């Protein structure tokens, strides 16, 4: 930590002088702070521009030179954005699909992860290798032929594909669970086995409650994955039952087919908001989920 001693002091002059060691540990790195603020500003400006665009009038969007900050922000745009297309109906579709897939994936991935971490069986090593290979398999490559197959059996236009995907679990989440369960002490199940508990009960009553951070991480990742997915609903669903992700890309156009950018921006903000709010609330568990699962 004394390496930092050569750098300019940035701590407040009111810091208690009687704690020299503590003080040097608490010293803030000013250079790192400045770089981070600049980077964060650059990363955040696009979001700010999205918000500003959402608050503009059509005239301000057409002005030359461009309007940077809308005088009289048009909050009404956010309401209009939910009216020009059946926004809430699409949002309900997104919510339904994301929740169903999220819950199913979270549970099935936990089951499989437990199997790989705590049980033995013939061919386990090979199967685990296949799991790792599946983690590396680009989903888009299997999606198109899967769509062709679903079309043959009449699943296109229904939500069943998401139920099936959910039940199958996700390789990456299975891996997260497996890493988490593998590090827990063996004594956890030994006593339960002596008491005659079945494996499923041990899993549900002992292991699942312990894996709360991973459960939350898994749910958030799979929920956001479905909420953000564009290709699967684009291929498999139709105008009436598709998700918000697809609807906002095509819904905000005028009668001549030109995009209505202020409503598009407002719609995009409303579409992103649930993901951001969810992440904000579960941030800590989310981080813990990665850290405790040995993603390294």
């Amino acid at each position, binding site marked *: 930590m*004394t*390496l930092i001693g050569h750098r300019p002091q940035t701590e407040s002059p009111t810091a208690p002088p009687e704690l020299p060691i503590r003080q040097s*540990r*608490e010293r*803030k*790195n000013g250079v*790192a*702070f400045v770089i*981070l603020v600049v980077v*964060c500003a650059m*990363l955040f*400006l*696009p*979001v700010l*521009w999205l918000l500003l*665009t959402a608050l503009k009038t059509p005239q301000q969007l057409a002005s030359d*030179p*461009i309007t940077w900050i809308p005088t009289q922000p048009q909050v009404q745009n956010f309401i209009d954005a939910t009216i020009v297309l059946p926004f809430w109906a699409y949002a309900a579709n997104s919510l339904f699909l994301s929740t169903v897939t999220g819950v199913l994936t979270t549970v099935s991935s936990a089951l*499989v992860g437990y*199997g790989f971490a*705590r*049980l*033995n*069986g013939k061919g386990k090593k090979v199967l685990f290798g*296949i799991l790792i290979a*599946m983690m*590396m*398999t*680009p*989903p*888009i*490559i299997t999606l198109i*032929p*899967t769509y*062709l197959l679903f079309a043959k059996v009449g699943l296109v236009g229904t939500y069943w594909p998401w139920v*099936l*995907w959910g*039940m*199958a*679990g996700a390789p990456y989440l299975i891996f997260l669970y497996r890493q988490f369960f593998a590090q827990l002490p*063996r004594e956890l*199940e*030994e006593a339960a*086995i002596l008491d005659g508990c079945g*494996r499923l009960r041990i899993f549900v009553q002992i292991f699942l409650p312990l894996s709360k951070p991973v459960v939350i991480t898994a749910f958030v990742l799979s929920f956001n994955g479905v909420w*953000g997915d*564009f*290709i699967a609903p684009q291929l498999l669903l139709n105008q009436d039952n598709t998700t918000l992700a697809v609807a906002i*890309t095509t819904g905000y*156009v005028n009668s001549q087919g030109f995009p209505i950018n202020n409503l598009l921006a407002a719609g995009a903000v409303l*579409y*992103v908001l649930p*993901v*951001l709010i969810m992440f904000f609330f579960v*941030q800590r568990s*989310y*981080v813990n989920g990665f*850290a405790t699962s040995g*993603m*390294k």
Partner: protein
Amino acid sequence: MSTLSPARDVRQKSRRGSTGFRGSGTFYAFISPWLIGTVLLTLFPLGYALWISFTNWDGIAPNQNWIGLKNYTDALSDPRMWASLQRTGLLALAIVPITICGGLGLALLLNEKVHWRSGLRMLVYLPAIVPPVAATLTWKLLFDRDSGAINGVLAIFGADAVSWMTGNTVFVVLLVVMLWGIGAGVLINLAALQDVPAELHEAARLDGANAFNSFWHVTLPSISPVLLFQVITTTIGVLQTFVPALLLSPANGPAAITAVPEANRIFMVDVYAQYFAYSKYGYASAMLWLFFLVILVVTIITFKIGGRTVFYAVDPSKEGKEG
């Protein structure tokens, strides 16, 4: 041998007894959702695509004709396929190093003691959780010819408005959309950095190492497995890029795929167009399989190169054995 085997038998029996091991049944019961799912939803579709790739199916006709390797030889001699493969490779070469190094740099800065640390950490991560559809639409607004902020800034410096969405400049927009998610690896990196034993840094300092030496010889080896994991997932992620390129198309709806400017016609855009715009299902499936093999080879090469440089504190082959 014969004297040893009974002892081994006893040991195995006692181990089985202590974990309640009752054959493979329970294991297979637990992993069955994934096993069945993988067979039905991954392996079977891949096999189906492989079969189509040997036919001239147009997606509509009830019958397909077996045409052997023709789709593959056609693809390999098609300059359009090579051009889109080249563009995809270029995209990966531009995005992967910047994302990995930038992500590590940001994590190192966030690992320092700075003001507003948790707030800054969230801001860095924020663009990475914005869904690709919204991220692309956001940048489309920023790069808009008439109302976008980018041309607004250029106008301040007296430059003419640039039509970003047409011609080669649209590739720049695609790069920017993808680089916006530079913070995606920050959380994993931070977790890894916090796991680097403090004693190692202390020891390095006592040996007279400066900040750079300490990073190069202590931090980097310790977190190298995490970095390798990110290099592989980022590479695969970039190679299969599709949605941003499609949504940066000037056209909307079904016309969008064929209207993607040539500069953004990366491999999956081409595959998608061959399937759904040109109805060349056999040819598109051959392209899909060729691409799958390319990604497989790239992944294996990365593993081989990475495996030599990655440092494991714990031998990974022994890890998890006691579980």
